[in-house]
């Protein structure tokens, strides 16, 4: 007989250790950030992210975003919802300057992304942890190396990379798959690798594009709980999702897009319009 329930998810056991497992220096940085930020959060003068009148037209003429205005204070938790093709991923691409807005301003942490010199772009991206909708894993690197890569690019000393990667892989339940390359992973495992990579370098802002599309409900909830805990530490989280159940249950801020317009932006909203 198959061993029913024999599968344990490392994430759940590792959960209480999230902070204590962090090396001292990192802990301090997180704490100080949380403390420092609580003032920022109180002062809406300096939000982490501001989009003003943003329009995005792709070269083929497609209008993916129209006159989008959005202000996200530091420490916020935002769900980005909307039907397929509404412009969620496009919005995210603008935030990491993968695309540049046709019109309007995108200001991240006080820097106008449209006028950011090319050489500054990597620095901005390292502040952010991004889960791409199509994962964007390096095909010739193992899970471990893919996650370690996000630390290497920030110039983290070699000695700190190992423990940090191991910890985050345990968190998403990929310890056993650490040496497999992406083509040897299941869809959900690839997605969890992408999530691990987005978390490992302790970013100030986490942007997750449909991070649970390939995950079963149980792991989805665990990932979400992880994001909520990280958010409680003061990290801003923005998550594009189609998971109505989760959005409606959590009652956080919901920004709804449709055909490129922001049609709804309410704190404590549900997945669907409620009126």
């Amino acid at each position, binding site marked *: 007989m198959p061993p029913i329930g024999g599968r344990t998810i490392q994430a759940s056991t590792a959960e209480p250790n999230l902070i204590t497992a962090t090396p001292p220096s990192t802990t301090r940085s997180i704490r100080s950030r949380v403390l420092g930020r609580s003032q920022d959060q109180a002062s809406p003068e300096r939000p982490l992210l501001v989009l003003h009148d943003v329009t995005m037209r792709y070269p083929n003429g497609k209008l993916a975003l129209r006159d989008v205005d959005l202000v996200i204070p530091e420490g916020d938790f935002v769900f980005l919802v909307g039907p397929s093709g509404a412009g969620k991923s496009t919005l995210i691409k603008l935030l*990491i300057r*993968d695309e540049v807005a046709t019109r309007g301003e995108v200001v991240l942490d006080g820097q106008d992304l449209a006028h950011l010199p090319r*050489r500054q*772009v*990597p*620095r*901005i*991206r*390292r502040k*952010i942890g*991004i889960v*791409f909708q199509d994962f*964007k*894993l*390096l*095909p*010739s*690197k193992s899970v471990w190396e893919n996650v370690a*890569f*996000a630390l*290497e*690019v*920030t110039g983290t000393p*070699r000695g700190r990379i190992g423990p940090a990667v191991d910890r985050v892989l345990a968190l998403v339940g990929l310890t056993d798959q650490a040496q497999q390359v992406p083509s040897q992973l299941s869809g959900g495992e690839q997605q969890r690798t992408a999530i691990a*990579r987005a978390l490992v370098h302790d970013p100030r802002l986490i942007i997750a594009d449909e991070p649970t599309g390939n995950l079963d409900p149980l792991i989805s909830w665990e990932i979400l709980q992880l994001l909520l805990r990280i958010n409680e530490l003061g990290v801003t989280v923005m998550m594009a999702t189609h998971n109505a159940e989760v959005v409606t249950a959590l009652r956080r801020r919901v920004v709804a897009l449709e055909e490129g317009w922001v049609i709804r932006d309410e704190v404590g909203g549900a997945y669907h319009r409620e009126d």
Partner: protein
Amino acid sequence: MLSFVLFSLSRAWQGFWRNAVMSLAATATMGLMLLMLAGFWIIQTGLLAGLQFTEQKVEVVGYLQPNAQANQIEVLQSRLEAMPEVASVAYIDRDIALARFRASMTAQGREDLTRYLDSNPLYASLEVKLVDPSNVRAVGDAMRADPNIRNVINIEDLVDRVLTVTNILRTAGTVVLVVVGIIVLFIIVNTIRLAVVARAEEIEIMRLVGASDAFIRWPFVFEGAFVGLLGALLALGVLAAVADPISGFMVDFFRVLPLQFGSLTRDLVVLVLGAGVGLGVLGSWLSVRTYLIR
């Protein structure tokens, strides 16, 4: 800084082996092209040596007056030897001249006309070897100016013609070498570009994750250097394997013994390694650049 270099090197090494099919194809191309370049360089070197050897054979012959005194001849000889254009001067007396003439007639199968004569009709001569055959006119004129010289064989036209041919050969060899060199350069850079194009997506992902340009570029550049190095070693290995037949061929063909094989080998190793690594680095640099700039 050093740790970054070490890091990039280990990355490059990984990258090379993880895209093994592609890396090895590029290495094979690199090796073949370097082999070709080395081959033409060897031929060109041999050709130049052969031509120089031929040109060294040019000599100015001045016939002496029958009444010239031995000490006058010696003075003339040492004066000629003092000229910077002159390599060496040999004195050929009448008996040697007659013997040589007879030998050359026999060798050509012609009749020996001298046997109809009662006495030796030939003159003694001075044979002057030149440092550079294009100085033939200056040396000839210097000899003609001396009263002890009866006449100087007029070889200026002949030398001009020889020089024309050797210069054409030199130019042709250089042109072929340069054309081959340019083609080799293009092909290698092109091959590395193909290998990088295939990994464009990887570069794009690295950038999206926040890797700086240097962080992406250097592993690729080192990988290009690996490809170049391995290709160069491949080419040198093949050359070493065929070195004996080649040197035999060169001696046969260009009839050149004075070719210093030691310095040729050293130059060749420097050329092949330098070209391989240099082009590998250049190719990677240029190819990655196109993906980093935009």
